[in-house]
Each structure stands twice: as C-alpha cells, then as structure tokens.
C-alpha cells in the first residue's frame, strides 16, 4: 500500500528570491501583557512610597519648647542610627525602582521574552531584602519609642516627642507598603515566566 501527496501548484508571485520578507508574526500579548502593565504601575507606586518614606523620615524633627541650662531637648532622625539606615535604604530602593522602569517597559513590549523578567526578579529579591530589613529595624525602634523597655530602663520618648513619633511611624508604614509591593512584583514576574502560554 502506498499513498501519494499532491502539493498545490505554486503561485507565480512566489518565485525564488522575490517573495516579500515579512517580519516574524507577533504573538498576541494576552494576559502576560496585562501583568507587565500592572507591574509597571506598581513600580511607579513603589517609587512614590519609597521616596515618601525617605523624605518623611529625613524631615522628622522636633524641639521641645523648654530647655535647661546645659542643653535643649531635641529629637531628629539622626539621633537614631536605625532611622538613618532607613533613610539610606529607602533612597537606594527608590533609585533602583526608577532604574528598573525601562526593563519593565521592555517586558510590556515583549511580553513573551523571559530575560527582562528574570533580571527583574533577581534584582527585586535583593532589594526586597534591603527594604524589609530597613523597615523592620525602624519598626522595632518605633515600638521602643512608643512603649519603652522596662528591664533595660529605656524610656518611651513618645510621651514627650509626639510629633516626632508620628512622623517616624508614618515613614515606617510607608516602607512596609514598599515591601508588600515588591512581593507582588516578584510573584507576578515569576507567574509570567512560568507559563508558556
């Protein structure tokens, strides 16, 4: 038993070497493009939150209206090493997020390319750790400022410096928003890499 296959006659336009060269057909972006757009928008939000945290902490300053013969009662962010760490850390995170916006745009234009997303996931993990460490250590000091510690005789300074306390607490909350956004970014990018379609 043998079978024959007939191939349809070739058209006269398509002669050797004269067929028009079209580019490779673009696959439709689909849900991956939507994820990439949301990634870009979340990145912009994280830039705002990170720079907001750094700015709020850096301007946290309060001088009490009374003073003694020897010194004036003042609290500012550089009285606390941890708050200085938060300002520097959030500035670095904000700078990284701004520099990663072009890669995010590339991921929107080419939704099926794995390389930009892979690069973003790896760097996002590193800066997630930096942001979380800064936010958590500042939160720990803010907790001490609110409550104090009895066995080490560390007094709760929030009772006197209430404005300073509010500003630093706000900065810590903003830093944790950055952390949550980073987690979403990493999860979204890995979902987009994993599924081929």
């Amino acid at each position: 038993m043998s079978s024959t296959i007939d191939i349809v006659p070739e058209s006269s336009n398509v002669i050797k070497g004269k067929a028009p060269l079209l580019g490779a057909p673009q696959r439709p972006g689909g849900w991956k493009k939507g994820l990439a757009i949301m990634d870009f928008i979340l990145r912009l939000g994280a830039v705002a939150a990170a720079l907001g945290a750094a700015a709020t902490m850096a301007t946290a300053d309060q001088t009490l209206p009374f003073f003694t013969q020897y010194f004036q009662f003042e609290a500012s962010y550089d009285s606390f090493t941890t708050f200085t760490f938060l300002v520097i850390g959030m500035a670095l995170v904000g700078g990284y997020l701004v520099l990663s916006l072009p890669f995010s745009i590339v991921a929107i234009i080419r939704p099926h390319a794995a390389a930009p997303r892979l690069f973003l996931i790896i760097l996002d993990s590193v800066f997630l750790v930096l942001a979380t460490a800064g936010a958590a250590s500042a939160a720990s000091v803010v907790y001490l400022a609110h409550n104090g510690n009895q066995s080490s005789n560390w007094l709760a300074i929030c009772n006197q410096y209430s404005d300073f306390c509010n500003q630093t607490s706000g900065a810590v909350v903003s830093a944790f928003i950055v952390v949550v956004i980073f987690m979403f970014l990493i999860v979204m990018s890995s979902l987009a890499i994993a599924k081929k379609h």
Partner: protein
Amino acid sequence: MSTTIDVAESSHNNVSKGKATIVGTPKRPGGWKKGVSIMDFIVRLGAIASTIGAIATMANADQTLPFFNQFVQFEASYDSFSAFQFFVITLALVSGYLVLSLPISIVAIVRPHAVGPRIFLIILDTIFLTLATSSAGAAASIVFLEHNGEQDPNWLAICNQYGTFCMQTSEAVISSFLAVVSFIIIIIINTLALGKH
C-alpha cells in the same frame, strides 16, 4: 508547477493497524535543572538548621546579675523584649514552612521540567523570605541598641552589664541572617530553572 510525493508504507508484519507496541513517552534527561534542584534541597536543609539554631539560642538567652538591691533583681531574658519574642515566633513559622516544603523540593528533583512545584515554591519562598528578613531586622536593631545605646533618648548600652545575654542574642541574629541568605539563593535557583525552557 506541482509536485507529488510518494509515501510507501512498509509491509512489515509488526506495523499494522492497532498492533504497534506502546513504549510510553520518553523522559527528557534532567540535565542542569536536576543538579540545581538538588542544590535547592541541600540549601533548604541548611536554612532549617540555621533557623532552628537561631530559635534555640534566642530562647535560651537569659542572664541574672549577681547583685541586687532592695526592690529589684537585675535580669534580662528574651521575653523582656517584644522584638525578640517576635523573632522566636516568626522564625518558628519559617522553619515549619521550610520543613513542609522539603517534599515539594523533592518533587522538583524527580520532575525537573515540571513548572507547578517550582512556581509554588517561589511564591511561598518570597512570602517567608519577607517574614524571616523582618524578624532578623527587628532583632538586629535591638541588638545594635544593646551594643551601642542611643545618646539622645538616653538609652544605655546594656551589653556592658549583661555580657552573656548580649552574646547569645547577637549569635541568634547572625544565624537568622544566614537563613535569609539561604532563602535568596533558593529563590534565584528556582527562578533560573523556571526561566530557561
């Protein structure tokens, strides 16, 4: 111009309708993905060891000074500090997750090309990385205050009196940061194995 192709079927007895033997889909060799999954499993075991070590060291951190006055005995233990309590509880959750993720890691070794287990591990690893980093950062902040104190709120450095307690808490924090580094390694490993098809 049209072309015809003649396909001749063999008249061999074995290859007739319905009698060819079914061999099963051939397995693709694991290659580098299998090696990387094995490394992921080993790093996970190391992370379990360091988190459990950190919990044990912190929970045993206790020191009572040999002198006392009429009102109070000078004692420092981990539950004097909320950040250390948070540290112990959170790292216990993290080590529980790591133990429960070992079977999924083994599935990723056995089926190196499967996407499901890896995506699951990446998403959960990111969440628990954040948890581990925040607990390590909060405890590190308190340990820094113990060593150095803060001048403006008049928080004294208690390490000068409570030497043993200080050393135990510092060791616990260092061990927890090793766990954080392990988490980053396993996230990057799983992402690379996922990205390259």
